[in-house]
C-alpha cells in the first residue's frame, strides 16, 4: 500500500540524532566547560567598548595640526547601584543633588542593565579624584574617550569638526552607537572611515567592590580596537596661517593650489572661527553662537560661495576665441570708452587703443572681449546663437566650472554657468542672442563661480591646459595611495598651444608698463602672471578679485583671492595674492608696507560704521 512508510524511521532518526548532538553540545558548554561560569555569584561581566584613538592630521610638511586628548565619561548601570554618600559624590564631580537624581532616573528609564552615560567628559583632575573612591560607588564606572585638540587656530573649515552621532545615524550605520563621535564636516567627514579606526570590546570581570578583576576568559572574546590612520593634508600650515592673518577683518576667501599636483595649499575662508570651539562639552553652545553670528563664520566661502568671476573670466573668453579660430594673437579691436550696441554701452576705462590680445588682457579692455565673445557665439558656422552658446558653454565647463569638481570636500557647491534652457525660459526660445548674454564675456551676469573653482581655473592656465582635481589629501598612513581620481590629468577642450599667448598677457598685467592693471602685485625676481577682476555686487560695494600663478615657468602656486566689498581687483585682492605668493615661494615678506596696508584694511567694521552714519 504505502511503500514509503518505512521512510518515517529515517526522519525520526534524524530528529533524534540532531537532538542528541545538541544536548551533548549543551552539556559540554554548560556543565563540562566551567570556564564560562563566573566564580563568585555576585560578580558581573562588564563590556567595555575600546575606543580607538582617532587618526592625527598633519600639514604638508608633517607639522602636526590635530591630535587627541583623553577625556573621561562617567557611566552608570542602575541595576548595580547601591546606597552611597551622595553629598561626597556630588562634590567630587561637581553636580547638584537634583541633577544626580535626574540623571539616575534618566538612566533607569533607558535600561536597568545596560550602561548609560552619566557625566560626559570629566577633566583628568576630576577623574583622578573620583578614581580613588570609585569602589564606594557601585554601579558607576569610567570609560575613556578622546577629544580633538588643535595645535593652531587655523583651517577650521578645511579640517572640519567631530560631533556626537544622533539616532538617525545609528539606525542607518549600525557601527555607530549613541554617544559615539563621527566627522561632521571637512577632512574629519571626508576621511571619517580612515580616521576613526575600529572599535573593540573588552569583557571584564568585576568583583563585588566594583573593581575590575581581569579579563573574562583571558580575553578570548575580546576584540581589539584598531587605531585610526593618520592623515597628511596638502595644506601648508604657515601659508594658511598667513592667509588667515591677511584676511582678518575682511569677508572673502583665498584658495591656493599647487598646479603640478592639484594639491590645495591653502583654503582660507574669512571670517572663520577657532576650531577648538567645536570640541567636547562646549560644542553645542559655541555652535549655536557661531550659527547666530551675522558674519556667518560657519559658511565655508571657499567652496560654497558663488561670485561672478569678473574680468578674470576674460582669460576664458580669449582661450575659447583662439580655439574657435575667431581670434588670433594679432587681432585688433579698438575701444572708445567701451562697447557700444544700440543705445547701450558696456563701459571701459581709459587705455591705449586699438589693442591686440595680450595688451587687451594687460589693460583688461571690456570692449575687446565683448567683440571676441560675439564672434564666438555669432560664428557663421553655427545656425543660431543657441548653437554657438552651447559650444561656448562646453569649453567653459571643461575648466571645471559650473559643476562640482569632485574634491574630497563634502559640501562643495557646483556654482553656475547658465544654460541655453535658462535663457529660453527667461527670454523665450529664439529671443535671445549674443547681445543679450554679452555680460558673460567679461565675467558678469549670471555666472557664479566658487573660489575653489577659480583657483582651479588658474591652476589649469598655469598648467597650459589641464588640471588635477583639487584635493586636501596627501597621504593616508594606512593606505599606499590616495584616491586614483586625484592622479588623473583632466584636459580642457582648449589646445595647449593657445595658452602661452594668454599667459603673456597675464604677465604684462603685473609686469607691464604704467597703466597695467595690477602692477602692485609685482614681486622682485619672480615672474607672476595674473588677472584682476571686479564682481558687480547688487547688494553693496563690488567684490575685489585676483587670480595669479607663479613663477611663469614651472609654476609652483596658483591662487584665487576674493575680497567681498573690496572694490577693484587691484585694490585689495591683487596685493593679498602677491603677498601670499611671496610668502610661499620666498618664505619671508620683503614688502612690509604692503603687508601692513592689507593687515590694516578693515572692510567689516568700516562698513558697519558707514551704515551707522547713514
Amino acid at each position, binding site marked *: 500500500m504505502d*511503500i*514509503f*512508510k518505512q*521512510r*518515517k524511521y*529515517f*526522519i*525520526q532518526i534524524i*530528529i*533524534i540524532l*540532531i*537532538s542528541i*548532538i*545538541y*544536548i551533548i*553540545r*549543551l*552539556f559540554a*558548554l*554548560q*556543565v563540562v*566547560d566551567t*570556564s*564560562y*561560569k*563566573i566564580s563568585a*555569584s555576585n560578580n*558581573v*561581566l562588564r*563590556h567595555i567598548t575600546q575606543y580607538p584613538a582617532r587618526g592625527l592630521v598633519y600639514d604638508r610638511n608633517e607639522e602636526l595640526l590635530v591630535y587627541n586628548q583623553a577625556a573621561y565619561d562617567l557611566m552608570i548601570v*542602575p*541595576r548595580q547601584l547601591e546606597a552611597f554618600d551622595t553629598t561626597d559624590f556630588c562634590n567630587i564631580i561637581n553636580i547638584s543633588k537634583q541633577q544626580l537624581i535626574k540623571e539616575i532616573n534618566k538612566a*533607569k*528609564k533607558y*535600561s*536597568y*542593565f*545596560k*550602561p548609560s552615560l552619566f557625566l560626559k567628559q570629566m577633566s583628568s583632575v576630576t577623574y583622578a579624584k573620583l578614581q580613588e573612591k570609585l569602589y564606594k560607588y557601585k554601579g558607576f564606572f569610567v570609560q575613556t574617550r578622546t577629544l580633538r585638540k588643535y595645535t593652531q587656530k587655523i583651517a577650521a573649515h578645511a579640517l572640519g569638526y567631530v560631533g556626537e552621532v544622533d539616532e538617525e545615524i545609528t539606525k542607518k550605520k*549600525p*557601527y555607530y552607537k549613541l554617544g559615539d563621535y563621527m566627522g561632521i564636516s571637512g577632512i574629519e567627514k571626508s576621511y571619517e572611515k580612515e580616521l576613526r579606526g*575600529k*572599535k*573593540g*570590546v573588552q*569583557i571584564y570581570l568585576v568583583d563585588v567592590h566594583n573593581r575590575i578583576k581581569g579579563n*573574562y576568559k583571558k580575553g578570548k*572574546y575580546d*576584540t581589539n580596537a584598531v587605531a585610526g590612520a593618520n592623515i597628511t593634508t596638502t595644506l601648508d600650515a604657515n601659508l594658511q596661517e598667513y592667509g588667515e592673518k591677511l584676511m582678518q577683518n575682511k569677508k572673502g576667501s583665498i584658495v591656493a593650489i599647487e598646479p603640478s599636483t592639484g594639491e590645495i595649499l591653502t583654503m582660507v575662508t574669512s571670517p572663520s572661527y577657532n576650531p577648538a570651539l567645536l570640541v567636547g562639552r562646549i560644542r553645542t553652545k559655541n555652535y549655536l553662537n557661531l550659527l547666530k553670528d551675522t558674519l556667518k563664520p560657519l559658511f565655508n566661502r571657499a567652496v560654497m560661495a558663488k561670485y561672478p568671476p569678473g574680468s578674470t573670466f576674460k582669460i576664458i573668453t580669449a582661450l575659447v576665441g583662439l580655439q574657435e579660430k575667431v581670434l588670433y594673437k594679432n587681432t585688433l579691436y579698438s575701444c572708445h570708452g567701451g562697447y557700444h550696441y544700440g543705445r547701450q554701452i558696456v563701459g571701459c576705462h581709459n587705455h591705449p587703443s586699438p589693442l591686440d590680445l595680450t595688451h587687451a588682457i594687460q589693460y583688461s579692455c571690456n570692449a575687446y572681449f565683448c567683440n571676441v565673445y560675439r564672434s564666438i557665439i555669432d560664428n557663421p558656422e553655427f545656425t543660431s546663437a543657441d548653437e554657438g552658446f552651447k559650444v561656448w558653454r562646453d569649453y567653459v565647463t571643461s575648466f571645471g566650472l559650473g559643476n562640482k569638481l569632485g574634491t574630497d570636500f563634502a559640501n562643495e557647491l557646483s556654482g553656475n554657468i547658465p544654460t541655453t534652457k535658462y535663457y529660453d525660459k527667461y527670454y523665450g526660445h529664439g529671443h535671445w542672442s549674443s547681445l543679450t548674454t554679452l555680460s558673460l564675456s567679461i565675467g558678469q551676469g549670471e555666472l557664479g563661480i566658487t573660489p575653489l573653482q577659480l583657483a582651479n581655473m588658474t591652476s589649469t592656465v598655469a598648467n597650459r591646459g589641464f588640471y588635477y582635481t583639487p584635493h586636501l589629501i596627501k597621504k593616508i598612513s594606512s593606505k599606499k595611495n590616495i584616491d586614483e581620481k586625484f592622479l588623473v590629468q583632466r584636459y580642457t577642450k582648449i589646445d595647449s598651444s593657445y595658452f602661452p599667448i594668454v599667459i603673456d598677457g597675464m604677465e604684462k598685467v603685473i609686469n607691464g608698463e604704467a597703466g597695467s592693471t595690477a602692477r602692485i602685485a609685482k614681486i622682485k625676481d619672480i615672474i607672476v602672471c595674473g588677472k584682476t577682476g571686479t564682481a558687480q555686487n547688487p547688494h553693496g560695494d563690488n567684490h575685489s578679485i585676483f587670480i595669479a600663478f607663479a613663477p611663469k615657468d614651472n609654476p609652483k602656486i596658483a591662487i584665487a583671492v576674493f575680497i567681498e566689498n573690496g572694490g577693484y581687483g587691484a585694490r585689495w585682492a591683487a596685493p593679498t595674492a602677491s603677498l601670499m605668493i611671496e610668502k610661499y615661494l620666498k618664505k619671508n615678506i620683503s614688502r612690509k608696507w604692503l603687508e601692513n596696508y592689507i593687515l590694516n584694511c578693515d572692510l567689516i567694521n568700516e562698513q558697519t560704521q558707514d551704515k551707522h552714519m547713514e
Partner: protein
Amino acid sequence: MNKRKTNIWNNIDWITVLLYITLIIFGWLSIYSAVYNDGHQSIFDITQRYGKQLLWISASFILILIVFLIDVKFYSLFAYFIYIATILLLISVLFLGKEVHGARSWFEIGNFRVQPSEFAKVATSIVLAKYMSSYNQKFKKFKNLFTLAIIILTPVVLIFLQNDTGSALVYFAFILVLYREGLSINYIFIGILIAVLFIVSLLVDKLIILFSIEIIAIIIFAFRNKKIKNIIITLITISSATFVVWGINKIFSFNLSFYIVNLIGLTLSTIILSIFAYWNKMNYIFIILGILYSSILFTNSVGYFFNNILEPHQQTRINILLGIKKDPLGTGYNVNQSKIAIGSGGFSGKGFLQGTQTKFNFVPEQSTDFIFCTIGEESGFIGTSIVILLFVSLLMRIIYLAERQRSKFSRIYGYCVASIIFFHFVINIGMTIGITPVIGIPLPFFSYGGSSLWAFTILLFIFIRLDASRLDLFA
C-alpha cells in the same frame, strides 16, 4: 451536527495540545525574564514585550477556537485559493510593506505589524498536501516535479526579495515531506550536490573546484569500472592532454590562465575517452561526464549570478551567512555573547530573573531570535535539555499522528508541520550554541512576536483539527 462536534472534542489529541501549552508557558516566562526591568512590575503592562506577548497568546486561543470551528474539508477545498491569496500578499508587501531591520516583510496597520511570510508557511503546507494527495504517479513525471518546485519556490523567491533570507530558507524543510512521500533519493542527492556546489564555489578557488570535481568523477568511474588498466589509461590521457595544452600555451605564449589550460586539457581528453568508451559500450561514462560538465558549468555560473544578478545587500547577507565576511560587532559577536550566556548558566542555571548576560548589553534580539540564551542562562542545562526534549516529543507525536491518518492530505500536512517546526528548532538553537550559521528565524512558540506565534499556532492546530476528524476523512 451536535453529534459531530462532541465527536471532535473527544478525538482531539490532548498530548499535543499539552505539549503546545507547556512550550507557550515556558516561552512566555523566558520573554518575561529577558526584558524584565525593576521599573516595570505588572505582567499585563502592554508597553513591555511580555505584556504584549500575553496579548498575542490570548489571541492565539481565539484562533484555535476558530480553527476548530472551521470544517475540515475547507482546507482541502480552498487550498489553491488560500495559496494564491497568500502569494498576492507576499507580492504586495514588497511594495506596500514597512522595512524593519532591513527586511521589507511587514504590513503595518496602525500600531500593529503583521508578517505575511510567517503565514505563507501554513498556506504552502496546505497546498502541498492538496497537490501531492491528488495524483497517483508521484515524483515520476517531470510535470509533477516541476509543479511542486513552483509551489515551493514561489514563496521562497518572494520572501528572499523581501530581504528575509532566514524565512526563505525555511521552505527547504519541505524536502523531508517530499522524501517521506517517495521522492527518489537521487533527487535529494542532486539537491544536496547543487547546494554544496553553490556554497563551495563561493568559498573555494575555482581551480581547486575543477580538480576536485575531476577527481570525484574519476573515483566514481573507478567504482563502476573496477579495472585498474582503464583507470590508469584515463589518468594518463587527462594528464598528458593537459600537459600538451600547457606546453603549447607556454611556447606560443597565448597567456591562457592555468584554469583554462586545465579545462581545455580535460575537454580534449574526454573526447578521446568518449570514443574509447563508445567502442567498449561503456554508456554509464556519459552519465558521469554529463554530471561532470554540468557541475563545472554550474560552479562557473554561480559566480556570475552572485556578482551580477544579486543586489549588494543580498550578497552581503549570503557572505555573512557563509562566514566569508565578518562584521566585528555583528553576527560573530552575537554568537560569542550567546555562548557566554548559555555557558554561564551551568548545570542548574542562575535562577529565574537572575540572569545578567541576557539582560546585559549584547544581542538586540534577546527576546526574539536569541531567546534560547535566557533559558540557558537562567535554567541551565536542565532547562535547555527539557526544552529540547519537549520539541523532540512534539515532533515525534506529530509524526506518530501523521502516520495514523487515513487521508493522504492529512498525513502530508502533518509532515509539513513537523518539517517546519524541526527546521526552526535546528537552526534557531543551533545558532545560539554556535553550530549552525546565524539565520534570523524564531524559535517556535518561544520567540517574542505575534505573527510567528499565530502562524505556528494555526499551523499546528489545523493539523490537530484534521487529526480529530481522521475517521471522517479518507482519500
